[in-house]
């Protein structure tokens, strides 16, 4: 569990909308409805969704519920098939050479642009079928008392994926607590926000 690591990278969020009381009751089902789906037996490049924070193989929350104290804990699992560019290039060369040989036998001297694209796509699918997806897991913790969310990563792509999937799952928008938004949430009110927006950089020399 990444949240228990000795050294953590964290992004903090606030939920923009008011959180309906019923949401906490519905959340285990919402998590399951948007759980991670395995792609080991497919040729899909990527798959992502929620899994149990205690076990990335548990997409049914059979091992433990997502509620821990007053926190809702879950993980974003992202599996990706990565074909190294050099491997892809080599197999494209092999496939194109075979295709060219066949074309010559049929009296043609070249392979059309469209056919080359088709061959590249076929090679990619073949290689994907032979490669295993690499799993990555990012923990998330939602404080049900404050409504604040902690995401255990500072990676921009992981954050974007988390924000989108959170919105899809719960129908709520996340606002990262950057200096401006943290200040706005602390001060509250339009007048304070207008003052923050009018700030000019300070000069210390």
């Amino acid at each position: 569990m990444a949240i228990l690591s000795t050294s953590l990278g964290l992004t903090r969020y606030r939920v923009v909308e008011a959180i309906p009381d019923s949401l906490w009751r519905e959340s285990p089902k919402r998590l399951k409805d948007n759980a991670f789906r395995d792609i080991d037996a497919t040729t899909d490049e990527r798959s992502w969704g929620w899994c149990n924070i205690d076990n990335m193989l548990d997409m049914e929350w059979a091992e433990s519920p997502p509620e821990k104290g007053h926190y809702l804990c879950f993980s974003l699992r992202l599996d990706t098939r990565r074909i190294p560019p050099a491997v892809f290039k080599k197999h494209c060369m092999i496939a194109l050479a075979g295709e060219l040989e066949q074309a010559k036998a049929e009296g043609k001297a070249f392979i059309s642009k469209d056919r080359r694209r088709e061959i590249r796509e076929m090679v990619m699918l073949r290689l994907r079928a032979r490669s295993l997806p690499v799993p990555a897991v990012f923990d998330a913790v939602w404080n049900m008392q404050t409504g604040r969310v902690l995401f255990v990563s500072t990676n921009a792509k992981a954050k974007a994926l988390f924000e989108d999937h959170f919105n899809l799952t719960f129908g709520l928008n996340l606002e990262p607590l950057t200096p401006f938004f943290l200040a706005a949430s602390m001060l509250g009110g339009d007048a304070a926000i207008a003052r923050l927006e009018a700030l000019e950089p300070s000069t210390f020399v």
Partner: protein
Amino acid sequence: MDLALAERENTILGQDFLTWLWHASEARRGVFKDKDGREFNLRMEERLSVQGGDGEGLESAVVKSPSGELTEARSGLRSGKKVSRAQLRFERDPEAWQVTLKDNDFSLSGLKTPKIETNDRDDVDPDARVLEKLFLIEQCLELLDGVYREFLGLRLGTAKWTEETRTMRDWIGQGQP
């Protein structure tokens, strides 16, 4: 407000805060107070980045100093740079936290909390370790937020901030050859 539109404000607030925090932590010998009036210690240590200019003229310097002197970073401040990333150490007896804070998004990296005391035994709640860890993380965020709130009180009060920047200017100029 659109996230991209807040980029300018994020950098202004983040850099002003971290630069102020460096000064404040030295001026007060690291002593701050939490929301309950309990004292804690906050210091910038070992690693610090300063940044100045913008666009193609953007310049930054990363300073690592195990002794905590950070002389090179201070000379960066004298040339108009501001703190863009800092390693902070919070201490509230007997506990200590360490975290690196980035200026423009307040992302937290390398957060080290005090050690979890709860054992991984069968007779304790299986969630006890996670709950203790979350409690420790939230304590650190609470201390950080308290200091940020204090900064905002100064930064948004025109007269207070003018006075504060004057003091900071003197501090930055100290030790100038």
